[in-house]
């Protein structure tokens, strides 16, 4: 399965079925991030309930320095 992750094609490994799986696979579970799935902003509680499908658009953002 290939998704668009932060604007780039990303191949999702077998067994990665939900946003929670994806976040865990990317080692981001303990980081301060926010995930948007097909333009819907998710909270952390949503991650296990949102399934991934081919062609999904996923954005993973963080807070960076800014004024």
């Amino acid at each position: 399965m290939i998704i668009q992750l932060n604007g780039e094609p990303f191949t999702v490994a077998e067994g990665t079925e939900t946003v929670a799986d994806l976040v865990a696979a990317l080692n981001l579970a303990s980081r301060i991030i926010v995930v948007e799935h097909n333009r819907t902003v998710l909270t952390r509680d949503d991650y296990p309930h949102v399934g991934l499908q081919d062609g999904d658009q996923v954005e993973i953002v963080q807070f960076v320095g800014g004024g």
Partner: protein
Amino acid sequence: MLKIGNHTFHSRLFLGTGKFPSFEVQKKAVDASGTEVLTFAVRRMNIYQQDQPNFLEMLDLTRYKLLPNTAGAQTVDEAVRIAHLARASGLCDMIKVEVIADTKTLLPDPIATLEATKILVEEGFTVLPYTSDDPILARKLWEAGAHAIMPGGSPIGSGQGLLNPLYLRYIIEDSPVPVIIDAGIGSPADVAQAMELGADGVLLNTAVSGAKDPVKMAQAMKWAVEAGRLGWEAGRIPKKVVATASSPKEGMLD
């Protein structure tokens, strides 16, 4: 005490977190400034280089309130989207609405700023719009429910100080919500001037992060905020065109 929405702050200095020379200097500068509010931008994570240190993750988040901005947004929809992303972190309900209309001046789009403010107020955010020094626009923003107004003193990062103190004064005198002077401040003198005009606070970034010694400058800015505020509360003397002696005229020696 400064009250914005449901939040109260002892410090009237808000500090941006961009462009510091190192995280070590930045941490010391944040400490020296005494700030309780730190601004951040929301950006895509570089998932291939995620071991890069992240300043926010190094902070004791019980000590600071986060004020994420919508910087990068050029439209109402983009600003609202960034605000939604920021709030979903669960770390904040405040948002600095920043919709930039022009890449040269970095001046805000007044119409989009007002529209985004209306939407985000309706959605329950604590909304602090970055605006120009236009007093009428400022009024429309607080009429729309903005919890504070953040007029720029001069273009972002320019260090030009307060280019139109008269208009800033109009905004301050008119506004029932706090006015935070944001953008363009270059020196402690600019900060003191803003506070002496009656501003409720200032938001600084480049003036501190770009100083030769950001930690010293953060300390100077802290004192400038306090000095300016005290001066405003004390009430300055009117300016006169004639001299008035401070020493008594009586009892002079022959």
